[in-house]
């Protein structure tokens, strides 16, 4: 049976992990490859690397880093952040990335989704959507959640599926960073309306939140950052807990 996926997300700036990572046994907690290796060894099903470098130099470093990760890591990984063209994607896939995550540039030019899906196959096109619920309405936001658009989450999600997205990575801005659980109602609606896998992001604080996101939110995968980075949740323990709650996971 296909299992639910647990995915740690690493923020990368100029080739280094940022936002704080706290593993005593690591020689260098800032080195994304070391971290990736640890996560791969201790139960992560996939990894996401989010490039938050703003400089051209940072982007070049990112390419080298992707190649370095691909050489050492034997599970799939997605790279996101600032990807806006076929050439960008071609580059990252050639360095060994398995999937790319596209957010703002898909909103600015939706045809990009069709082009990427046609050229590289939908399996490597993850569309990330940041949305915020304002007075009951889920509104899509641009540029790392800083700029609101006129678009509704569910309409946009349906459109990106139609254009050839292979997966949707939905981050609830209301839940992100709160550690109070995922946006399960919106996730369940996405999962029931769409026919592609939904990755849940934003709000993980404890194991129960993961149980809920799979049972109530009907998500196919769940992403978290700080609870994993700071060792608050060990992935293998989490998976045991999920298994005890009749959620299929991989060991």
């Amino acid at each position, binding site marked *: *049976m*296909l*299992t*639910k*996926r647990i995915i740690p997300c690493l923020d990368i700036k100029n080739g280094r992990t940022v936002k704080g990572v706290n593993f005593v046994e690591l020689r260098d907690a800032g080195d994304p490859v070391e971290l990736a290796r640890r996560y*791969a060894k201790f139960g992560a*099903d*996939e990894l996401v690397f989010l490039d938050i470098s703003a400089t051209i130099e940072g982007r070049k470093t990112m390419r080298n880093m992707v190649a370095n990760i*691909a*050489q*050492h890591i*034997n*599970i*799939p990984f997605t790279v996101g952040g600032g990807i806006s063209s076929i050439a960008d994607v071609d580059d990252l*896939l*050639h*360095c*060994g990335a*398995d999937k790319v995550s596209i957010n703002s540039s898909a909103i600015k030019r939706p045809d990009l989704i069709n082009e990427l899906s*046609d*050229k*590289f*196959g*939908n*399996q*490597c096109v993850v569309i990330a959507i940041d949305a915020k619920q304002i007075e009951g309405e889920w509104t899509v936001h641009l540029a790392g959640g800083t700029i609101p658009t006129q678009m509704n989450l569910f309409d946009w999600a349906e459109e990106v599926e139609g254009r050839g997205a*292979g*997966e949707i990575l939905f981050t609830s801005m209301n839940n992100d960073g709160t550690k109070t659980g995922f946006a399960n109602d919106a996730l369940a609606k996405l999962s029931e309306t769409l*026919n*592609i*896998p939904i990755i849940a992001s934003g709000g993980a604080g404890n194991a129960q939140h993961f149980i809920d996101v799979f049972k109530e939110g009907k998500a*196919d*995968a769940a992403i978290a950052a700080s609870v994993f980075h700071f060792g608050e949740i060990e992935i293998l323990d989490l998976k045991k807990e999920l298994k005890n709650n009749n959620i299929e996971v*991989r*060991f």
Partner: protein
Amino acid sequence: MNVVIVDYGAGNIKSIQFAFKRLGVDAVHSRNIEILKTADKIIFPGVGEASSAMTMLKESGLDQVIPELKQPVLGICLGMQLMCNYTEEGNTKGLEIFDVDVKRFKTGVKVPQMGWNTITDLKSDLFKNIKDLEFMYFVHSYYAAYCEAMIATANYEYLYASALKKDNFYGVQFHPEKSSVAGEQILKNFLEL
């Protein structure tokens, strides 16, 4: 060990090369017929859309070369599907190595199947030291139906062939190069065939 990855423009060649590198083998990629014929082992990868991949194979004449190869050949994902008779994707005629058709998952499940699923009914040295119900990483929207050439099955909407074998030809629907330690064991087994 001389391992050659068939390079016809469709495939995640880098990931496969890196996976062999981790096993201490430098796999080269080539579309040169002589290089392919003299290799010890051949990997036939594939990612993307079936009909355009088949067009690329035909343009390079590889559609004639691959079925004639005598050494062990391992098709991965779309590579395996192209070795079948026919695939519904782009209404494409395959290389007719495995006597089975490839169909699309219908509506009962999310498509593509994306993630870790178990393989079972393991029936080949390719799966030496692999336990029943081991997890493998799958990404696909089409599947090879239950058939005689099957050496492993998986379950997603239907029970289907997750690996195939005929003579020196092997095919796996999952990605051993991305399937952690167990995937590495399968690649190692292939090298030892």
